């Protein structure tokens, strides 16, 4: 089979889209948190909770849309721990983040094995064929036959990019991350701003996890994120709060993962472990090359206490 045939290219493009979306969503969630000064090191666990709750909601309702909502709700609930312990009480973010990761892994694995492992079910698929465009070669069957969820999430991403950079709310978020006391002095509420950021963080990361279980794989498995949350954290740091850069860097990751099948078709057999490793090598090389140019909000990681110096 030729490498450049339409069907191969379409499959490649589809693979890139479904592999990249969870990462973009998680990285956008993490960006909202980090811009407001909250480092959520637990998004690996939050993603798993979102993936599991999304899976449960999808198979019990039979609708991937309800599943996505379930995933978002799961992510928000998981982030409540971070909200209370870190934003409100000012406890150590790294320790809480690791705790959320470990507990998310443990809880979802225990729950899945207890409830679903004996009768694994697949999530019903869904796709919207956009009239006209879906008949185009290559992009038709890949891009324009995605699930409607894909388009809704795309709109949500554009909305977040707009909100972060063009509105007062976005300004408050960035002020909370740059200099919380100035936001306080201007009459804003740092805790409320950061709380909204953490909840949105949970919603997006949970949606990323749910996308992974509902649309990328169609099922849930224990530890299915495999470090994706940590990749999202790195991408967030390299993207400096710009949604465009998140999309570009995430696409690089998606291509690295999706290139496996086309390579196998032309007879290049590379072990699966190489592909699991490749994104991390890409990330490491990027970190080495651009480490000095990555900037994070100055107040990242420091809880805000009114009046404290």
């Amino acid at each position, binding site marked *: 089979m030729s490498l450049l045939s339409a069907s191969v290219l379409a499959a490649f493009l589809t693979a890139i889209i479904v592999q990249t979306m969870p990462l973009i969503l998680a990285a956008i969630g993490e960006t909202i948190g980090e811009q407001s000064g909250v480092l959520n090191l637990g998004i690996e666990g939050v993603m798993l909770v979102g993936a599991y709750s999304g899976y449960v909601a999808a198979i019990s309702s039979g609708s991937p849309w309800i599943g996505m909502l379930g995933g978002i709700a799961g992510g928000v609930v998981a982030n409540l721990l971070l909200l209370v312990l870190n934003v409100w009480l000012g406890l150590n973010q*790294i320790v809480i983040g690791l705790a959320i990761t470990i507990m998310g892994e443990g809880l979802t694995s225990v729950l899945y094995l207890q409830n679903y492992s004996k009768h694994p079910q697949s999530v019903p698929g869904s796709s919207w064929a956009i009239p006209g465009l879906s008949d185009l070669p290559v992009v038709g069957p890949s891009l324009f036959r995605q699930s409607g969820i894909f388009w809704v999430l795309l709109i949500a991403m554009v909305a977040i990019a707009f909100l972060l950079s063009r509105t007062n709310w976005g300004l408050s978020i960035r002020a909370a991350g740059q200099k919380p006391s100035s936001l306080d002095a201007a009459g804003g509420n740092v805790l409320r701003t950061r709380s909204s950021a953490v909840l949105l963080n949970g919603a997006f990361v949970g949606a990323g996890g749910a996308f992974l279980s509902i649309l990328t794989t169609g099922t849930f498995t224990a530890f299915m994120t495999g470090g994706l949350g940590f990749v999202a954290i790195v991408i967030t740091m390299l993207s400096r709060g710009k949604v465009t850069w998140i999309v570009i860097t995430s696409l690089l990751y998606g291509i690295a993962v999706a290139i496996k099948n086309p390579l196998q078709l032309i007879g290049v057999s590379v072990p699966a472990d190489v592909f699991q490793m490749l994104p991390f090598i890409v990330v490491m090389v990027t*970190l080495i090359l651009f*480490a000095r140019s990555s900037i*994070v909000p100055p107040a990242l*990681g420091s809880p805000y206490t009114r009046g404290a110096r």
Partner: protein
Amino acid sequence: MRSILPVVLALVVAGLIIVVMGSNPLDFYAGVWKYGLTGNNWQDSLRLMAPLMIIALGLIVAFRGQLWNLGYNGTFLLGSVVASGLGPNLFPVLPGWLVTAIIILGSLLVGALWSVVPAVLKARFGTNEIITSLVMSFIAIGVVNLLIKGPVHDPNPRVTAPQTATIARENLLPFIDGTRVHIGFVVAIVLALVAQFIVSRTSFGVRLDVFGASPKAAQHVGISRSWMIILLFCTSGALIALAGSIDVLGNVTYQRANWNPGYGDAVMPFVFLARLSPLAAIPLVAFYSVFANGGINAARSVGLNSDFLLVVVGLILVFMTITEFVGEKRRLGQGYLPAGMKQSVMALFGPRAAAPVKVTTPAPDKVTTSSSPTTTTTSTPGKVTT
């Protein structure tokens, strides 16, 4: 007392979770006691304790210098694959003691070399070590899997599963007389005592604490920041890799692909509960060894997956920070985390940007720990080029 409170609270909440899951928590905890201590089971617990204790020491070395080495899972597997890869091939051709020595030294070396990357990036460019060590860990896991499926796969053609050959019984680490506990346990305890001596009785221990409290102050008294970061990170990596090779040589005897016991995650809360003291870590790690060894079977006996232990570990971490918060509010005792480590996230990607500023009157909830004579330092953010 405050070292035990978070554990007790976590066990209570874990018990409640078991109730919600529809099992009897008392059965679970009775199972932990039964499978962890009674009969000969305590020996299995001590066998598990050997790698856990050495990893704890590796974490203590890094954390004392305020370095977040989170690459422990990958480093551990690199150490174990040195043993499981070289062992079956070298033991038949060379004297046993020599092979053991080669494996031990090899794992130390591999662990140290792997940690050079995050250490140098941190020392030279100030790249945040949380991220680099984590990413290096994922790369290490991939490398280990490739090795096991390729060069060090069991040469027996009938073995199709991705795993290495088994090291013969007579070549494993010898048992302590009358038990099934291998001498790796003794090594771990001796290392802990040596580490305790170094941090509490030598000038290096003082320099380590000065560096940990403030790298800038350390620079002023003539301690090289870069050298210290590289030394601590490599020692930490070497110890964690050593734990891997000892676990293979003494306990598991061969290695499967995708085997990842996650010892580092499990041991981390206890390292903090011990307030980074090697001596205090011994009883805490011993407790966890019994809990983990018994808990795997106990969880199965009440119909739960053994990953339930992860939930307990996470709960301990959460209750640890809450207990610390309450304790600080009431100015009781000292915190589990050194003051500087709480600030270290601020220095993400730019520790040189973090200039310490003296705080003369600490706010009530930012009280310095009672044992620390230095004033609290907070970091002034901003990007400073070097």
